[in-house]
């Protein structure tokens, strides 16, 4: 970094938590992480069209969150179709 300037940005609580935790664990300063991440992100976006990107972060609506909560608290039985599908898997020693 040659001439550093300060910026501020509104980010999600989880993004800040991720930044804080990664910085603490890795020992890398937060400004370095943000700058490196930005370069990686922009490079990836320049090389890939939007349709080839798979967004890593999905933000749930209230209904979406309720669905996930219910699914995790009371997982549904495996459907017959899912059981049939998983039966097509080769055993590990034959894969």
């Amino acid at each position: 970094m040659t001439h550093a300037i300060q910026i501020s940005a509104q980010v999600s609580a989880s993004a800040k938590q991720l930044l804080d935790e990664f910085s603490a664990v890795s020992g890398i300063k937060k400004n370095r992480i943000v700058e490196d991440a930005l370069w990686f992100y922009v490079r990836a976006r320049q090389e890939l069209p939007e349709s080839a990107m798979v967004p890593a972060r999905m933000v749930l609506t209230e209904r979406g969150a309720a669905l996930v909560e219910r699914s995790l608290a009371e997982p549904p039985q495996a459907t017959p179709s899912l059981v049939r599908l998983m039966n097509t898997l080769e055993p590990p020693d034959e894969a």
Partner: protein
Amino acid sequence: MAEPAIRRLLATDDTPRFRCGDEDYDLFLQRYAGQNQDRLFVGATYVACDGSLVVGYVTVAVGQLDRDDVPSEVRGGLPRYPLPVLRLARLAVAEAIRGRGLGGRLAAHAFAVALQVRAAAGCVGVVVDALPSRIGFHSELGFEEMELKSGQSAIRPQPVSMFLPIAAVEAALGSRYSGAVA
């Protein structure tokens, strides 16, 4: 043709001749799947091959479900931190061998990867970006439509995000693998 084995995409695989009937899916395999996997590390693609010719593929990526803007009364018992998931981003089968069950085998392979991810790093479920024509197929597997504020796939036609808890995948496997999926 014997049932093709499913394995990770290699740089030497014959992808240019892959034709699934959707040029966008063909182009993704031919141009972007390899660099996503081997250079940018933002996903992995598993292929079924007839010799070196790719006849089907499934692309997965790790992701997270977040509830930043969801009021606390709706969060209920969910933890405040993001929930790790495996995202089944793309699945396509060559037109020439469609109808032989390869799509299902590719999906099963992706679900097995989800179990591996759960064991290695944590994963609460599988998210699939289901094309409108495939919503019924995924519903039969137990997936439910999951409403998102952001993070939808940009593929067209606009897919519907659907969620399946990893416990259902494990239950479907029963005792066959005792939790060990290679």
